[in-house]
């Protein structure tokens, strides 16, 4: 250790093999655990929704009171909303515990600052516009993007990790009569029980939209190669970075 202290950190990095880990073990494990929990949450959330596919604003609402919108779905009593509920909360535990692990380790390892926070010179309207335009034309991402996140990726991942997921948990807590007896601020700050339910629904839709775009981008960039990278941690099976 003492012998290397006079070396610049950068010098050491330069001499390391180029085929370094793209995704840390922790990011990979939490990614797949979160995949499982997210699929279970969406399926069960839809099951619960089928019991009453109507939405309200404020504290209360039900049949016989005005709704803000009705989904064109049947009212299904029993069945999906029962097992859906058991599944939803079990998956929510997996999701929250995985999320905590990811967030704490991401802060400690500076994953968020180094890999997700927009890199120097990356954040400008011009580059953002250019990137959005490339995405809209289904332009294949630059080869460089296999090794580092693009600006659009960074911004959307940050929004998902630090806004949408916390919002889902917050509005979820707001719907628990037991939790709000201890922490009433969850429901008060949400603007009421039914508002929390409506926000929960919209935020879930945004998350589903994110996943659809995410999977579409993975397919565009090369589904097998990118999925293998998220499993093994390495890009293109150990080939040297171009």
């Amino acid at each position, binding site marked *: 250790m003492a012998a290397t202290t006079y070396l610049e950190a950068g010098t050491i990095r330069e001499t390391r093999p180029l085929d370094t880990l793209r995704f840390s073990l922790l990011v990979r494990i939490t990614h797949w655990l979160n995949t499982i929990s997210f699929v279970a949450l969406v399926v069960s959330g839809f099951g619960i929704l089928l*019991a009453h596919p109507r939405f309200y604003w404020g504290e209360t609402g039900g*049949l*016989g009171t005005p709704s803000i919108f009705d989904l064109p779905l049947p009212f299904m009593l029993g069945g999906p909303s029962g097992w859906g*509920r*058991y599944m939803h909360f079990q998956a929510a535990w997996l999701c929250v515990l995985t999320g905590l692990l990811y967030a704490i380790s991401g802060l400690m390892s500076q994953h968020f600052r180094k890999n997700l926070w927009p890199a120097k010179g990356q954040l400008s309207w011009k580059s953002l516009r250019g990137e959005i335009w490339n995405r809209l034309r289904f332009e294949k991402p630059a080869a460089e993007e296999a090794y580092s996140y693009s600006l659009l990726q960074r911004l959307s991942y940050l929004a998902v990790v630090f806004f949408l997921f916390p919002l889902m948990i917050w509005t979820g807590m707001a*719907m628990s*009569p*037991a*939790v709000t007896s201890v922490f009433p601020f969850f429901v008060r700050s949400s603007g009421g029980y039914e508002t929390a*339910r409506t926000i929960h629904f919209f935020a879930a839709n945004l998350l589903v939209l994110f996943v659809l775009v995410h999977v579409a981008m993975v397919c565009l960039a090369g589904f097998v190669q990118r999925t293998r990278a998220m499993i093994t941690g390495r890009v293109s099976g150990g080939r040297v970075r171009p």
Partner: protein
Amino acid sequence: MSGNVSRRKLITTGLTAAAGVAGLGVAAKIADHYGLIPPDWGGIWGPGETLTYATQRLLMANGSLAREFNRSEVSKVVPVSGPQPKTDPYQRLLAGGFADWRLAIDGLVARPSTFSLDEIKRMPAKSQITHQACEEGWSFIAEWTGVPLSYVMNLVGVSEKAKFVVFYPFDASWDSLDLPDAYHAQTFLAYNLNGKDLPADHGAPLRVRVARQLGYKSVKYLHRLTLVDSLKNVGDGRGSASPSYGYSWYAGI
């Protein structure tokens, strides 16, 4: 040499796993002793259900109160979930204005008793304006008047061995509460909704009102309460009729 190492590794791993299993077993015993294991802890949904129940029991250990509202916030519409039983004993009692109806309390109590509706109405009454959400997603705010369940339980003298109170209604939706929720300040035996006698479809003559759980826990059409030390031998052993329909026993969510 390497064979030794891998054998040692194997033994260490085995011992660690055995210790882990034993540790889990001890943890489960302790958790059960402190009432942190729900009766429907088995099956594939058991882990999530147990985590939720145990966490919330610890969080709410100080008897936290559900939010209460002003009279101006009371909902104009109180939806009905599940109509009154059409069966004979209930319909006959309803037709007679519940004059012959009695609430029986038995099981692990010092003085098994029955009470008429008039006797219950003469007990010290309390009111609360609380929010009730159905598991389906709809909700309302209403004013409930009744006698705190804790008052009735103290009247009959609940044994120290008791851990749950079982509710028997005239319909099939029997259920049970743990004692922390049964003794909770907002758990009522309610006979009055928004200033009027409880309408038949809302659970006349008497229903329980559990403010910190979803609506299906507030059992309607009561006729008997039983104090028990375990739910294993009650019904199918999962604490209420709900798990057999796919719904969890604990509805604090």
